[in-house]
């Protein structure tokens, strides 16, 4: 079942909060991404996780398949915004590719 970016954003839960961590204040962001099947979720995860973040410091991103929840921590709002925005663009590309060239072959 094809999954468009519009239907995705209806289901996405996003939260951003500031937490105090000693003397540092880090920004956190959570994104829950539903997929039609576990297989498609795995394909997306494996396509999106290998590349390093462009900036060496300032951001960590954890892609966790089991809860389908992604977690970012960043020092600056701007870095966080760019990283999340980039991720959503890339995720949308994965989904368009799956729509056009899927469904996945049986394993």
């Amino acid at each position, binding site marked *: 079942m094809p999954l468009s970016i519009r239907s995705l954003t209806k289901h996405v839960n996003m939260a951003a909060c500031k937490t105090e961590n000693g003397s540092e204040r880090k920004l956190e962001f959570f994104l829950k991404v539903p997929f039609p099947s576990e297989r498609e979720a795995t394909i997306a995860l*494996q*396509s999106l*996780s*290998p590349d*390093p973040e462009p900036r060496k410091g300032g951001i960590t991103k954890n892609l966790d398949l089991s809860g389908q929840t992604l977690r970012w921590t960043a020092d600056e709002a701007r870095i966080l915004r760019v990283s999340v925005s980039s991720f959503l663009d890339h995720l949308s590309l994965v989904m368009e*590719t799956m729509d056009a*060239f899927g469904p*996945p072959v049986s*394993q």
Partner: protein
Amino acid sequence: MPVVIGFEGSANKIGVGIIRDGEVLSNPRRTYITPPGQGFLPGETAKHHRGVILTVLQEALDEAGLKAADIDCVAYTKGPGMGAPLVTVAIVARTVAQLWGKPLLGVNHCIGHIEMGRLITNAQNPTVLYVSGGNTQVIAYSERRYRIFGETIDIAVGNCLDRLARVIKISNDPSPGYNIEQMAKKGNKYIELPYTVKGMDVSFSGILSYIEETLFAMLVEITERAMAHCGSQEVLIVGGVGCNLRLQEMMGVMCKERGARLFATDERFCIDNGVMIAQAGWEMFRSGHVTELSDSWITQRYRTDEVEVTWRD
């Protein structure tokens, strides 16, 4: 008879090509062209590629008359190049590889140029001059590595020409280098300018206003020096700047003086394209290489001599 599909998008060209046993089945390509006076930036370039890549992929399959099931291996450019465009293309390659259940292969862009040049020209063991907007290297094969004999110590020769084009606002359509070449053909006054060769290496950053003669003469000199070192009787020019007929002419004069042969390809294969990645992927696949998904990260820096060339003796 493996069939390999290759994805290339490390600079402003996005190409997808399919090859089967040395036969090019399709090689469609699109170029992101900016207005005169402007270069191309990573974010915008990635956006351009993202907008057309799936169309170009379908074109590649349609022109080759193939379906996904006919493909044996998915090759893509691991690096070097611009980060954002590299990621965009790698993401699609990884996704189709998984959708189709095919192995993935990360290819070095420079080696893509070399292997395509070798296939098309049938040069046996040439000294290679790789010249483009992003790279300038003199390369010779030795013991399972493409050794970098000499290179630019600052910017690529194509970058130098592109910046000249920007300063004097020459059109970027079809490419700034092509338009410089057409204008240079009409020139008849040669101005002597500083010529910077340091042993095997060259420097271009101080000479942005220079004309082709000087830049190309420098490249001919370092190629000749590498040939002398290796006792080579063949030269192969690859990379976008390799389309330039004046460069080919000047290299031809040097080769003739040495009794060597000159090889070059036309704009289909000099300029970045998908099938060159497929061809290098084909060689790598046949000699047993495969890239695991977790190792398939792209990299902006990837030297030609980092790859173990297991497919040559």
